[in-house]
């Protein structure tokens, strides 16, 4: 493909990806609306203020926000064609992301173990699904990052990887923004 066609392809993919992000926004918006309507439907059980630990949530937030920072650094490294640096920062992102997921799953496990699983009340169904949906997106993102890093390691075709990693960064930052909403609406406002 010539340069013009590559630019066209990149343009289309960028617009298409942003369009996809918008649809993902709508999906999260639906789940946020659901959560806000159901957050008091505790079926006589405990609510947000009893169950959530703000400190723990803050830790999760720090992990995720840092991972966004490392993604930014990875992007820079890629643009400067520094392959090893790029892979390093991607690895850091993956480690932070995995830590985030592990801690989140731990929170879920504890809640379930104490009898406050998603099947206990509408509030908990909404909580687990909203946060879980975000976590699932993170998991997909981690898989994506691994595949991208491996692709670069194997092929070394920088131009295409730059384009694809650009899309990945958009995705990852988007999940960050969603998490900030989750932190605010679910944890901070819930505990207040």
């Amino acid at each position, binding site marked *: 493909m010539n340069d013009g066609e590559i630019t066209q392809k990149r343009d289309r993919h960028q617009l298409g990806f942003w369009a996809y992000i918008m649809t993902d926004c709508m999906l999260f918006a639906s789940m946020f609306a659901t959560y806000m309507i159901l957050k008091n439907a505790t079926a*006589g059980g405990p609510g947000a203020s009893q169950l959530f630990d703000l400190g723990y949530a803050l830790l999760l937030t720090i992990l995720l926000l840092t991972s966004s920072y490392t993604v930014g650094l990875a992007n820079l490294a890629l643009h400067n064609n520094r392959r090893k640096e790029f892979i390093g920062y991607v690895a850091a992102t993956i480690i932070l992301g995995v830590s985030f997921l592990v801690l989140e799953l731990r929170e879920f496990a504890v809640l379930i173990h104490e009898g406050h699983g998603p099947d206990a009340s509408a509030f908990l169904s909404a909580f687990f699904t909203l946060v879980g949906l975000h976590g699932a997106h993170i998991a997909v993102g981690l898989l994506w990052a691994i595949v991208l890093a491996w692709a670069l390691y194997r092929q070394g075709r920088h131009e295409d990887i730059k384009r694809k990693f650009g899309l990945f960064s958009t995705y990852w930052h988007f999940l960050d923004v969603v998490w900030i909403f989750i932190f605010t609406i679910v944890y901070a406002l819930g505990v207040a």
Partner: protein
Amino acid sequence: MITALVLLGVILLRGVHFDILQPAGDIARQQRDLMVIVLSLIGIVVVPIFIMLGWFAWRYREGNHKSKKDDYKPEWHENTLLEVLWWGIPIAIIAVLAVIAWQTSHSLDPYKKIESNTATIEVQVVALQWKWLFIYPQLGVATVNKLPIPEKTPIHFTISADAPMSSFWVPTLGSQIYAMNGMSSQLSLIADRTGEFAGVSSNINGKGYSDMKFTVYSQTDADFKAWVASAQQSANMMDDKTYARLATPGLADETSYMLMDNMLYDKVVNKYMHGMSHGDSTGGTHVMPDGSMMKNSDVQTMEGM
């Protein structure tokens, strides 16, 4: 051909009762009149559409030998005056309809009580699978699938369900409203004459849905009082045991009962309320039979998402 059509019409229309167009209650009458008014207003726009459609199709068809030279203007595609007309007139009509919609949305709001010198009769309705339970808390009686009411008397319904969502509807008397578990919706109707009127559920709630019918018996005051008296002495008792039997899926016959438990309706609604805490009831107000508000409820209507 015309005879055949007329005959067809006679056959079709014999015995037909257009419940909605031949109402027996004030609410339904207002709604019928509203339909006529609205249809007429819409007709202002629609009739010319049909006329022009037919006329232009005929006049400008390709094989029209009577067409003049000036009749084909392939580049003519704009005309400000016409656009002003067919934006302006519909906007005006919709504006009128909007005002009508606003006003009648309030005047015919199911939650609005009917003003009358006659005392209102309270009826609590529980939609079950697949029957209707009617409780008259002030009168100590209850019925299944039959709804005797005195004519020319406002009836105030508080409606709930112990089953998937149904819809309480007496077409000849007026509006329908959903019967939902854990919710209490309200409706006011009045019959302006005696008679028997069909009542239905208009929302599917399972296999027996088609049989979820009830009959409204609009009676004279005297007849109604007589029925109440006999039901109050009825051997059939509406208590928890009877209710439990009714709540199991199945059909039921028209029966009158002596009401043993005045709080039966509240119990049914509260069965589902346990899931929600303060400030969470959405759609449908929670109102005691006498109209006062239930404790621990916030009215929060579903104003979209």
